[in-house]
């Protein structure tokens, strides 16, 4: 997107075309999210249940990928320990932009039940990688996963591609 970023003004005057293009691009990214197949703990079982027939995560256009290179977002489903933390950092770095992170469950949100005495538990995955959506629950219901996914899609749809500065209100 490097080339397009240089268009400084367009959105206001005559930006309809670019606006529509942006919408299209955002639509593509939000509707086709491949996720990194990555189960850590209890939430991973609910994650599997969500992939199963009753909840069918694929309705949202998500496809499991086993390689981080091809994934669009990573779901941290479970307790992140210190032994694991370095790996998660590496995995996140291996993913190609644009990439998103969903933190699922109390454990990855803030250490969850282990926040107080868990000497080996990282207290929140957002200490090592930026998180886009937090899904609470221990473990969350499969529907809650899907709601988090819809929240992420909303977020992607609001992203600015062509006119970042204006959207962010910097100018």
């Amino acid at each position, binding site marked *: 997107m490097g080339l397009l970023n240089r268009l400084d003004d367009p959105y206001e005057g005559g930006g309809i075309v670019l606006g529509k293009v942006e919408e299209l691009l955002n639509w593509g990214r939000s509707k086709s999210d491949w996720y990194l197949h990555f*189960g850590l703990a209890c939430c991973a079982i609910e994650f599997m249940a969500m992939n*199963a027939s009753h909840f069918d995560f694929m309705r949202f256009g998500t496809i499991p990928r086993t390689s981080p290179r091809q994934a669009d977002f990573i779901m941290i489903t479970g307790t992140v320990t210190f032994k694991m933390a370095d790996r998660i950092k590496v995995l996140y770095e291996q993913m190609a932009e644009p990439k998103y992170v969903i933190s699922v469950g109390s454990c990855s949100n803030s250490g969850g039940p282990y926040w107080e005495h868990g000497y080996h538990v990282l207290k929140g995955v957002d200490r090592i990688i930026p998180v886009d959506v937090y899904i609470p629950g221990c473990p969350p219901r499969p529907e809650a996963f899907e709601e988090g996914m819809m929240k992420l899609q909303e977020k992607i749809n609001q992203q600015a591609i062509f006119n970042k500065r204006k959207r962010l209100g910097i100018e």
Partner: protein
Amino acid sequence: MSEKKRLDLEYSQLDSDRMRINVGPQHPSTHGVLRLEVEVDGEIVTEVVPHLGYLHRSFEKHCESMTYQQIIPYIDRMDYISAMNSEWPYVMALEKMLDIKVPEKVEYLRVIVAELNRIANHQIAVATFGLDAGAFTPFLFYFRDREFIIWILEKLSGARLLYNYFRVGGMAADIYNGFREDCLSVIEKVRKTNAEVMDLLIYNRIFIQRTANVGILTPDVAINYACSGPVLRGSGVAYDLRRNEPYSIYDRFDFDIPVGKGEVGVVGDCWNRNMVRMHEMEQSCRIIEQALEQMPMEGDVKANVPRRIKVPKSEVYMRAENPKGEVGFYVVGNGTDKPERLKARGASFVNLSVIPEISKGYMFADLILILGSIDIVLGEVDR
């Protein structure tokens, strides 16, 4: 640092054509965050070094600062696939220490929920085992069925996965109207899907080729490694705590102990281990049917114990037959409402330790299947 050095590979000793492959902790089929360091000679596995601890959540440290009641949610999070079964031995240990007699209805309810959870666990085990072999569809069939079991357990306890349903001396909630009918309809579904999966997966020639004669675990090795559950029974040892050391009311039910018979392949291979789980689902169905029939529908299930349980100075090791094997809790009470020490003996932890022994000499693809056939859950391995 010296420890690390000892473990790290001594590359100079390797032959030039051997390759060290790191499987996990992020790997689609290590059933969680297990890391295996595999040395392969071409495709043949010559050495496996498991590295654990990627899900070490300091369970035992937590227990020392929790009251006895508060520990139960943490036990759920140990073996999160069969939480009901894991809660049971812990609660039994406390009941033994406090000398509490549990009402009849509670015993039956415990048996039913534990067996339902056993079915759910075996469904996941067989499903993921099939997934390791590349068959995706049975996986979803089983998860579809598991959902019905989960719904029953949710209606009972309020949670889908981590139930926190057992209490010392009782249960958290009574059964609901229509519980019996729900259970019976689930049993019917389980049997139907099992029959379907038998055709679709278990007796598929490709699946047999993949799993029979692979990862053979002989009985004496299994006992020496203290394997338990379907891993031990797959090797032909008919040892089931529900029968050999009957706890609760298991002596009242008529059920068989399925063992690996070598119908296909050799006794103790992956296929037979898996087959034991298939048969155990059927046996669980039978136990549930009998329990539903005998269960008294009246009566209270709430515990008649003080809110703050104080356990006298005593030590009890209580074990029970979990879907994955023998789970034991060694509880050391010190007279207060918090345990002095609580050690959990995870079935997966012990069963997993046999991996380096039985995976040598098989192919790399077999290693994944051997791991799948042992049915580990990392929450219990690492605690």
